[in-house]
């Protein structure tokens, strides 16, 4: 048996079990959603929509958690500016792919009128470039300083999107035609506070046409039409797009797995464990960190595009830092350092913390429609204190589920850091070694422990001493 065969034999069970785990998790989520829907008498259309929506969010949060895992789990870069890269991705995509400005149209500003795939590529590239701009100066800083720089950067991006100064401008684009070379000025812009209308063709429809499946797709819609009476198209669109997002997840997973297992990835993990050692071994750690950071940022930009390009319109205030922290919670649930863990974390976060409470609220509202929920805390609590009537308080609680879910997320994050800082899956962090560290026989236990340090240890060796050697001056 050759070495490659041996490796494959060793990996196969792990791969199978990870894939099985993910499929089981997804099916479990569906079962819970559908069961609670059936129990409360949701109709088929609502059920299918709910499944599509939860699959979509499972997908996008998995994408973002995977990209963040490359930064934090593999390289140890503490990036809390994720939302800035997402915003740059989708805004660039919008500018490139939006229809060219026509006076009197619905959109205040136009775009370059390029195909959607070109926009997606441009968005990814722009996010990676912003990553470069941030990385060049910031990566030599301590982890907590990098954190503050990245979050400040994401806010600067949001202020820029909000600003009137870039609401609309003319972008000269060089072109080459038969008559010669010149530049054409396009009226584009960031749209200011009111955002941008994404007035390009539905990316899903464009994709279906491009792969030549328009006919079968129409047939699929008709098929669903037999079960859902009027207008089955949006339901089918939602389901199919959710599947495409899962396809992106598979692509990210494959890419990051390949990256992590390559010599490049092993250097990244070595940097995470001890940058000084990697440096001493002759690796240009700065270049590795910049490349890893750019790749992760590009993937975050693409994830932003995938998330928002079918939303019809984008506004700057969607891209607040809380989105960044959502991704962090997802990664920590699954456990940093493992790609499977990132997907598990993304799925659990999306299904139970992000969509779950809203779905529950919808269900409750469907079953027992209430219109007289108190508008604020005072009228909600007064009856509880005065005559022990808990109804208004419960109604207010259900009505405020959007705020309370953030409280729950905060509590979950604290509880995770206390009880399972290594994530739900346990110790999955991959080691920097290319050969298994578990030796034969009795030494297995001790050697195995090398790779199982929790996130706590990662920064343990670095006391807060930014000015290092010059202390006695």
């Amino acid at each position, binding site marked *: 048996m050759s070495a490659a065969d041996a490796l494959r034999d060793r990996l196969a069970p792990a791969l199978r079990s990870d894939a099985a785990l993910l499929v089981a998790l997804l099916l479990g989520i569906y079962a819970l959603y559908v069961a609670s829907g059936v129990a409360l008498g949701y109709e088929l259309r609502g059920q299918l929509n709910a499944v599509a929506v939860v699959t979509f969010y499972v997908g996008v949060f998995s994408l973002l958690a995977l990209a963040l895992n490359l930064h934090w789990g593999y390289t140890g870069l503490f990036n809390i500016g994720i939302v800035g890269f997402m915003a740059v991705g989708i805004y660039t995509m919008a500018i490139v792919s939006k229809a060219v400005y026509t006076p009197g149209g619905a959109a205040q500003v136009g775009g370059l009128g390029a195909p959607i795939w070109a926009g997606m590529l441009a968005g990814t590239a722009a996010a990676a470039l912003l990553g470069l701009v941030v990385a060049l100066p910031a990566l030599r800083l301590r982890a907590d300083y990098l954190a503050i720089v990245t979050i400040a950067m994401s806010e600067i991006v949001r202020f820029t999107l909000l600003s009137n100064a870039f609401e609309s401008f003319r972008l000269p684009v060089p072109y080459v035609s038969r008559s010669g070379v010149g530049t054409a000025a396009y009226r584009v812009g960031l749209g200011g506070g009111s955002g941008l209308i994404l007035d390009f063709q539905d990316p899903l429809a464009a994709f279906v046409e491009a792969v030549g499946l328009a006919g079968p797709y129409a047939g699929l819609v008709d098929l669903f039409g037999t079960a859902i009476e009027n207008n089955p198209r949006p339901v089918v669109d939602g389901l199919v797009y959710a599947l495409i997002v899962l396809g992106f997840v598979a692509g990210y997973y494959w890419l990051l797995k390949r990256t992590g297992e390559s010599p490049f990835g092993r250097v990244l993990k070595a940097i995470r464990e001890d940058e000084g050692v990697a440096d001493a071994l002759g690796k240009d750690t700065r270049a590795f960190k910049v490349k890893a950071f750019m790749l992760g940022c590009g993937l975050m930009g693409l994830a932003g595009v995938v998330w928002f390009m079918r939303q019809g319109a984008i506004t700057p205030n969607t891209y607040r830092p809380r989105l960044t922290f959502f991704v962090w919670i997802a990664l920590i649930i699954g456990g940093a350092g493992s790609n499977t863990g990132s997907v598990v974390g993304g799925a659990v976060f999306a299904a139970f913390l992000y969509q779950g409470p809203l779905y529950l609220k919808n269900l409750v509202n469907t079953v027992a429609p209430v219109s007289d929920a108190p508008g604020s805390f*005072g009228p909600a609590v007064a009856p509880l204190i005065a005559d022990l009537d808990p109804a208004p308080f419960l109604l207010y609680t259900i009505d405020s589920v959007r705020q309370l879910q953030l409280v729950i997320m905060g509590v979950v994050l604290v509880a995770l850091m206390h009880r399972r800082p290594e994530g739900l899956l346990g110790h999955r962090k991959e080691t920097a070694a290319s050969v298994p560290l578990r030796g034969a026989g009795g030494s297995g236990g001790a050697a195995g422990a090398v790779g199982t340090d929790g996130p706590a240890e990662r920064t343990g060796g670095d006391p*807060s001493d930014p000015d290092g050697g010059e202390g006695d001056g």
Partner: protein
Amino acid sequence: MGFAETYARGRRVAVENPIGIVVLVVVAVLAVDLARGLATGRVPVSRVGSLVWDGLMRGLVIGLAGIGLSMTYSILNFANFAHGDFITGGAFAGWATTYLLAGAGSADVGALLLVGAGGSVFGGALGVGITTTPVAVLAGVLVAGTATVGLALLADRLAFAPIRDAGGISLLITSVGVAFALRYLIQFVFGPSTRGTTAASAVPKFPLYLIDGFVRIDAHDLALLVIAGGLMIGVHLVLQTTKLGKAMRAMSDNKDLARITGIPAERVVTATWVMGGGLAGVAGYVLVLWKGTISFNDGWLLLLLIFAAVILGGIGSIYGAIAGGVVIGLTYSLSVIWIPSTFARAAAFLVMIVVLLVRPQGIFAGRTTA
């Protein structure tokens, strides 16, 4: 020192620190532009005066809140992202007290306690102000401080103490969780709306004539100045003259050495939260008094500016935090001379990023908490 030596030294500095040179050039260009603007009358002197005053006020709030953040950063060794929501918590606790005292008898107690959630009571209608209801405001300051001390100690007990030795990043992530829970609990109870808190028309104003116009100064500015300045001097005295202060400075300089010499680490940690929390709460209260509105987001929006100030001044140095706060406040206010006001905050962040690149140890580095 000869010319050649000076030249060689200048060259070395320029080669070693190119960003520093660029920063100096940019600052010089802006200063020259401002001087020309003032000389030609393009930028009225009184406008610059108003902006400086505004920036000083903002900077004092940032500096006051920054002292606590700087202390927890150096003594507990993590960036506390919940600090902004301690500020908000203190502001709401203090203003509930002020409303209750100012509006007792004239409005529903529940509405007063919720600082007029859902538009049930308006601070303007109650006539709240430092001159109109001084007792209510002073009581509010005290309650804001003490309530935030309680909040900080509770957060420490529940969230931070169990993982005291877990490393800075774990604690930072935990503090993000605390921040989320706290912020949206505050929103759940006090509502999402931004509302006015003071009777703006009843505040005495002291316009100061400056060459070509007036610098607007009012009683709330002066109250902020007195409260923030007084507390800063108080902190200085505590740290410099008491045994506790000496222990805190020792902890922040070298934890292990401090422990070996018998300093009770947990007691110092508690004292850190008490001081940091109290100052954060009062800062939140006076911020609301100064700007006249309150919202569940106030502290969080201020937090990144406070981080900027603390990093600017050098983590661990309270004088650095105060000076950094004033610099950040002035940057925030004065930047509107050159750029649209949407970017005022961005300018402050940029200053922080540049300081991190040029002098990551901060301006006052090496004098931690001293």
